[in-house]
């Protein structure tokens, strides 16, 4: 009996101790890891959508509460040029064929237009749906005004990737979400970075 007691005590002591240490370590590295993931997963797509800038959008990022939707928040990446806001970007998601498609949407700070989009994560069919991340599809968004962001088949001005209407729709849904968010946050963003 004593032995079993000892076994249980030692085991739970060790497990508890390592659990506590790991929880602390997890907390300590949380910010670093988030930044690293942003740099290496979202980073390449971010660089693709931004106008010329001289800051690091990832370290300057800021979380915003979405007005009218308590508990929801979105991270905005600003692109600053000579200390002034040149553009900003956010990541949104749309339902594609294989799962969510993550899209970074960049906005021009000066006028109501997109600076471009970049796809971050997706699980689309290789060679077909993955083409939404390719040049031909994404370049349509560079400099596009905020209206008529819809597939041509639905009265918009965007050409779908042939054979991948689900994936195209998913990417566009994400862009539309970003535009809606931008409308709500526009003033606040303007106040944060001049």
């Amino acid at each position, binding site marked *: 009996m004593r*032995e079993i007691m*000892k*076994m249980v005590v*030692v*085991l739970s002591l*060790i*497990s508890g101790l*390592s*659990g506590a*240490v*790991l929880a602390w*370590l*997890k907390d300590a*590295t949380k910010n*670093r*890891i988030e930044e*690293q*993931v942003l*740099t*290496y997963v979202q980073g390449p797509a971010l660089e693709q959508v931004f106008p010329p800038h001289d800051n690091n959008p990832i370290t300057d990022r800021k979380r915003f509460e979405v007005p009218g939707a308590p508990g929801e928040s979105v991270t905005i990446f600003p692109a600053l040029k000579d200390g002034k806001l040149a553009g900003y970007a956010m990541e949104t998601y749309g339902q594609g064929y294989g799962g969510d498609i993550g899209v970074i949407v960049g906005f021009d700070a000066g006028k109501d237009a997109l600076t471009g989009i970049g796809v971050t994560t997706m699980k689309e069919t290789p060679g077909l749906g993955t083409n939404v991340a390719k040049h031909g599809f994404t370049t349509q968004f560079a400099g596009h005004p905020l209206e008529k962001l819809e597939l041509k088949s639905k009265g918009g001005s965007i050409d779908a990737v042939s054979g991948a209407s689900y994936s195209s729709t998913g990417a566009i849904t994400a862009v539309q979400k970003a535009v809606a968010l931008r409308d709500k946050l526009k003033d606040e963003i303007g106040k944060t970075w001049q």
Partner: protein
Amino acid sequence: MSTLWKEFSKGLWNELPPFRLVLGLCPTLAVTKTANNGLGMGLAVIFVLTLSNMLISMVRKIIPAKVRIACFIVIAASLVVAVELLMQAYAYPLYQQLGIFVPLIVVNCIILGRAEAFASRNPVLPSIADGLGMGVGYTASLTFLGALRELFGYGTVFGAPVMWGSFKPFSFMIEAPGAFVCLGVLLAGMNFFSAWQARRKGGPDAVPAVSDCGSCGMCDMARKRG
């Protein structure tokens, strides 16, 4: 001091983990596409191995024999999770490169094998020396294999081009078959070398490296448990 050195140095040649003891093969094969990856993996293993040896040696007297293995696993796995977190925070590209083999350090026979064979029977300092020595030997082996494969497979070492201009990369070396063949030929070379050494000294023939799981000691460990 000399005993510490002895424990440390045996991992460098006489009991060189992947080549002599034929331990921890999976990462040895999988992550040695480049010298950099081999080095990174090796450093992670040094960290886990040294600390796990130290911790296990520290608590060896209070652990009841029956839950010994479970305790070893908890300690080793916690250290692996710590390495995972640290790598994500400070070396994310390497973490991506090594992929699933970072969590798999926990089942690397070296860790549990050294815990059972050495750390659970020896005081703290020799255990640290043993872990450090084995870890350094493992790292050196991985880096060497990585450099070799990178040299022929990409024509570079640590990313720096070293081959002549018209060199056509021998991609076989960086594919899976190349990993196996390269390690096999290296082992054969080491056997050849030891045999030659033994013959020169006039001693008995050296025993070639065999992998019967014998050196990993997990089987014995598992049987004793029941």
